[in-house]
């Protein structure tokens, strides 16, 4: 594997094939109402067997050494099927760790070595995703840190073995720390969620042992936030497309008044508008992948903008999907509502529309 477009297409295709067999929407539907809320066997298959965690980890750390697009392609395929669990957050954390440079190499080596799934914990009550207001404290030095604080609405924590956490040291500096879920002083409480495909947890840390992942003086916390937004953007763009496909397929076969309802012009025009939105979201997500790949300085701007555009697009498409399906789209057994709920969680996580829009404006220098 050298990371050519053909390699990339092959990786995407093989992941898609596995997911189509093991983690299609019907399976997501089953898994999300189970006790765990995710499929441990799928996690095992994609990590230990397929080695996805090592995909973009450098070769000298034991990984396959592929570039960013290999991981983002997998995030998209997971997103299109709304796969629950810590697979997307793991790849997101790995991408973020890569971007953090040498200081994160020990973590990356451990990820491959121990096949660690990861979650990313940023938000706090009161602070939300405003990094400047982070109140979780880190005490210690060098390799030995103890974290105290509470992180809320953490995706992936129910299925992750390590959680990346933002915290402030005694000097007031914000940093990124890795905490083992199983360590003393770590309490993960997973909630039932409106978006059943994405459980959220409260992570309480009381003098929990941690290692620092980012280099002092850097913008590690921001790197983490940008990558979480990128995850939401990529998932949403892929899900929006899948949801539109689902809807269009239905409109082609469903008949009313003696005609396929997809032949009614009012519905056609609405679908056309959705297709335009989906194309825009996809292009914006693609651009973000390029930004992450090249390490461009526009990362924060592009991630914020893409999360806003893609989450809104998914919400628009999914809301129309329910409406265009009519009564059947309102049933629990149908998939439309999964996209709808996923759209709302993508909108509300990692910053409200107002906050993210203001960030985009500031970062764009408007």
């Amino acid at each position: 594997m050298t990371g050519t477009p053909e390699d990339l297409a092959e990786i995407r295709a093989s992941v898609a094939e596995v997911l189509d067999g093991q983690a299609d929407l019907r399976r997501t539907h089953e898994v999300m109402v189970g006790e765990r809320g995710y499929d441990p066997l799928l996690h095992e298959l994609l990590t230990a067997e397929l080695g996805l965690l090592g995909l973009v980890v450098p070769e000298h750390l034991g990984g396959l050494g592929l570039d960013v697009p290999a991981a983002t392609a997998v995030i998209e395929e997971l997103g299109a099927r709304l796969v629950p669990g810590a697979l997307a957050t793991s790849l997101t954390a790995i991408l973020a760790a890569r971007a953090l440079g040498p200081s994160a190499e020990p973590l990356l080596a451990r990820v491959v070595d121990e096949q660690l799934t990861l979650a990313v914990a940023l938000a706090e009550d009161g602070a939300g995703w405003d990094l400047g207001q982070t109140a979780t404290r880190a005490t210690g030095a060098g390799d030995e840190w103890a974290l105290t604080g509470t992180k809320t609405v953490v995706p992936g924590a129910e299925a992750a073995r390590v959680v990346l956490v933002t915290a402030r040291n005694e000097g007031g500096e914000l940093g990124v720390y890795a905490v083992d879920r199983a360590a003393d002083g770590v309490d993960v409480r997973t909630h039932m969620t409106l978006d059943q495909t994405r459980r959220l947890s409260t992570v309480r840390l009381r003098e929990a042992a941690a290692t620092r992942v980012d280099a002092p003086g850097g913008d590690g916390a921001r790197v983490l936030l940008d990558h979480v937004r990128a995850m939401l953007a990529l998932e949403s763009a892929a899900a929006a497309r899948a949801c539109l496909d689902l809807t269009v397929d239905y409109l082609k076969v469903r008949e009313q008044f003696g005609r396929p309802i997809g032949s009614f012009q009012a519905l056609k025009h609405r679908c056309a508008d959705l297709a335009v939105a989906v194309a825009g979201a996809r292009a914006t997500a693609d651009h973000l992948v390029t930004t992450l790949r090249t390490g461009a300085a526009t990362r924060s701007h592009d991630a914020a903008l893409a999360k806003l555009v893609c989450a809104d697009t998914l919400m628009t498409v999914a809301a129309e999907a329910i409406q265009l399906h009519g009564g059947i789209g309102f049933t629990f057994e149908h998939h439309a509502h999964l996209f709808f709920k996923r759209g709302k969680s993508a909108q509300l996580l990692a910053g409200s529309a107002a906050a993210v829009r203001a960030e985009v404006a500031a970062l764009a220098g408007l």
Partner: protein
Amino acid sequence: MGAPVSDEQFRAEIRGWLQEALTGPFAEAVGTGGEGREHEAHELRREWERHLGRAGWIGLSWPTEYGGRPATLAQQVIFHEEYARAGAPGRLGHMSEQLLGPTLLAFGTPEQKARFLPRITSGEDIWCQGYSEPGAGSDLAGVRTRAERRGDHYVITGQKVWTSLAHLADWCFVLCRTDPGSTRHAGLSYLLVPMNQPGVTVRPITQLTGTSEFNEVFFDEAVAAVEHRVGAEGEGWKVAMGTLGFERGVSTLGQQIGFRRRLDAVIARARSNGAWQEPALRDRLVDAYIGLEVMRHSAVRLLASAGEGLSGLEASISKLQWATWNRSLGELAVDVEGAGALLTGPGYELDDAQTHFLFSRANTIYGGSNEIQRNIIAERLLGLPR
């Protein structure tokens, strides 16, 4: 109870009665059974129907011989306003009173009226509606459920969906195809079918809220008496369309009070959690207020010109307005909550904002979808060609 009362007297009477009932034996019923909460407190709400009936609050404006009570259109609106204001429980008798009753009054035989209407006004009988079918959706003329006449009975086979309250109902009014060779609007008949018989099976539909307001109803050689056909054989379409007109009737006006309560609750929440300080959210809240004011003025205007009731056209405009408005408010309610709205109780237990957000997606689908209403407005109000 025969003499007409003034609107003020009427309002005072219903308000006082509701307050007494809802602080007394039915205190637990307050707030139950609203939109997306149809699954709540069935027993209590069934008793509530009888309580309402005994007090003479069912069948406003119906003839007194059937247990009705004289009431002007304005008083009917007042009833709905006060009912909503008091937070009284969602009506199990909604279909019976708003849909079947007016249909029987318009199309029923004297015997049918005498038999069924008093049991509606007394709150005894609960009815459900058998119109929609799988694969037909908003296209009611696509009914495929068959009813074959055998002597003094019809034998009914087919399937209905989106039948709310079917699991509680005593009777179902069913649109069936009695002429097997017919298509579309022709050859349909309107039959009254007892639910408690071997040929009827009810299966609840789980909705995206995780709860079940709606059901599938399977008819497998279920039986209805010929004398319980409303209107002539083959004229069921006309009878059903009459009912649809009533469905979007006067209760829409009273509904506004409930909407205002919802809006006020969302605004209060926004004020308490700081969302009101966010200009984009505040603008959406103010726009929701303005939209509700526009609906209120529209309702008053309709009421002033309505006389006997609302035409289908006015009802279509009203349905499109409120369904779309309420759906938007549902989304606004969770946006005001922020990421906290993503957490539910155990077992997918939803709070008011979450329930509103999810259940209101049905508003623009049931009772004639937004698309159907737009067709009606475009063709019948604006006269655009088919």
